[in-house]
């Protein structure tokens, strides 16, 4: 007969059913956390390398600027990539050129309610899957530093929305040929798809849903905000999908621009 109660029980607590197994789940519950962990770690490693690489982020002929470096606000940026001027002057070599926007979008993703689920489950195993005992002895959740910072998601959302507008502006600039006239290439389309995914991700955010109308007690007194809330609620159902899709589109857009900029292959041009 098994004698140990399900962890933790604790001194003084009435005993629970004595089941020694960590979980009795028979499905492959570990597949999803392992898969998500692989994706997240890959993105973290890739983006860290790219952010500190400080080259191959701009294609001058077609005005392709990678989202990881936009906006580029220093004198260290290659000519033409600073659409908003260079208020910060020259950067030392160790400061990433995208230092203004990258912490914002990274913070937006880290504190995002979808990535919190994904990260806590796959990177921190808290819990690794539903009804699977977590390995940690203590748990205080998001009640104290540093994890209560997760509650600042709203303010990352406001800032990320501004970054989204900058990205949309970048996409407009990418409709350009080498002679300065209108042009469309494969890179332009990739940037466009990325913008759609980023907009879907940003607008379907739970914080967006809250500020649009979720905070109201009476929808009937605010019919316009109710309509916005309804719209965001429809998007919000797919927030996790947008989160993952936009992660890959950002990655792919950056890779494509890096490849074209480095001359690994040339951009496929449709118009000009």
């Amino acid at each position, binding site marked *: 007969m098994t004698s140990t109660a399900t962890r933790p029980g604790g001194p003084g607590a009435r*005993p629970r059913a004595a089941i020694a197994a960590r979980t009795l789940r028979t499905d492959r519950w570990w597949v999803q956390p392992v898969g998500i962990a692989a994706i997240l770690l890959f993105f973290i490693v890739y983006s860290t390398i790219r952010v500190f690489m400080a080259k191959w982020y701009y294609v001058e002929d077609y005005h392709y600027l990678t989202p990881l470096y936009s906006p580029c606000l220093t004198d260290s940026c290659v000519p033409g990539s600073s659409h908003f001027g260079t208020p910060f002057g020259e950067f030392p070599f160790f400061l990433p050129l995208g230092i203004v926007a990258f912490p914002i979008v990274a913070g937006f993703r880290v504190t995002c309610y979808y990535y919190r689920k994904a990260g806590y489950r796959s990177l921190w195993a808290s819990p690794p899957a539903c009804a699977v005992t977590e390995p940690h002895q203590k748990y205080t959740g998001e009640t104290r530093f540093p994890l209560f910072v997760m509650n600042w998601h709203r303010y990352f959302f406001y800032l990320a929305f501004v970054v989204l507008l900058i990205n949309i502006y970048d996409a407009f600039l990418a409709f350009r040929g080498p002679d300065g006239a209108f042009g469309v290439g494969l890179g332009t389309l990739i940037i466009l798809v990325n913008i759609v995914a980023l907009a879907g991700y940003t607008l379907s955010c739970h914080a967006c849903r809250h500020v649009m109308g979720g905070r109201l007690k009476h929808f009937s007194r605010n019919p316009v905000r109710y309509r916005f809330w309804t719209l965001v609620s429809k998007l919000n159902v797919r927030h996790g999908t947008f989160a993952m899709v936009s992660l890959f589109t950002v990655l792919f857009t950056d890779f494509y621009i890096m490849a074209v900029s480095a001359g690994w292959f040339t951009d496929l041009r449709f118009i000009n």
Partner: protein
Amino acid sequence: MGTEKSQAAGAPATKRQFRIWRGDETGGDLKEYLVEVKEGEVVLDIIHRLQSTEAPDLACRWNCKAGKCGSCSVEINGKPKLACMTRMSTFTADETISVTPLRTFPIVRDLVTDVSFNYEKARETPAFAPPPGVTPGDYRMQQVDVERSQEFRKCIECFLCQTVCHVIRDHEENKPAFAGPRYFIRAAELDMHPLDARDDRKEYAQAEQGLGYCNITKCCTEVCPEHIKITDNGIIPMKERVVDRKYDPLVWLGNKIFRRGQVPQTSVTSEHSPGAVRTPAAGPPGFHSHAGASHDPEAEAQAQAGVNWHREVPKPTAPTLDETGKLPLTELTFDRPAAPSPFGEDVSFPLPPEHLNYAHPEQDKH
């Protein structure tokens, strides 16, 4: 029923392997059973068959067999589920099916656990606060305003979300401070209620219910048999409402500088009432006061002493009659825009507890 379906369910009346946890608080183990399974049956049917055949002393809790009473919550193959809503056709014919009691709560016997933790937490959650100046019968709400709350009213209190939540499932020590997903959606339901008069539910959820312990891993939503979007529609909106008041960096900075804007120390947010189930030191193990933690020492003491169920309670006044001495039958013939209260016009709800009286099943023991 198509051939494919009957194949999926296994051939009618086959034998299937089960592992069912048998035991009590002194210990227990998974016991193997080979049970007959017929087409169209659910796990609860198999438990009943076991009770009527080789395990007549197998304890399980059940009631409606229709997924609406929330009694037959167990863990099937490690996943919290309603036994009456888990079809045998969802398992393969050679699969051994384990049935265990809810892991988060103290065991009573076999598949029955003591879920009183949840009722303690329910009692601690402040009830609906009637709006001032509106009498019962005059409540008017627009559908658009109540539909968010109505989603949470689908809850059947099966406590599957409570048992799956790792905050208390894996950490017993968090039980005093954490109310659980079911009570977060209760708080959300009332905070979104167009007529609820309380405005401190956000502070309550944060300070007393332990909303900050939730890390949004969404297992509560995954197991909900009523498919309530507990996390997306209940917990996250409540977290955002707390953010409105508590985690706005500008407000926080202002509070630090000017030492203002502290959460008022009302009876629900006082530091010394950590929203607790009874600690072992406060009484013999297994004893429940049925007073929850009302945070009112007098009411708590009275509840501990036991209620005199034979006491006199004030009689309600008679309802308002019309000039013919009768109760107005319809709103059309009544001078108010609603039917009259059968309890009399001076009664407001909820009734004060000291005015309630009913025959308690254990009244003679007091």
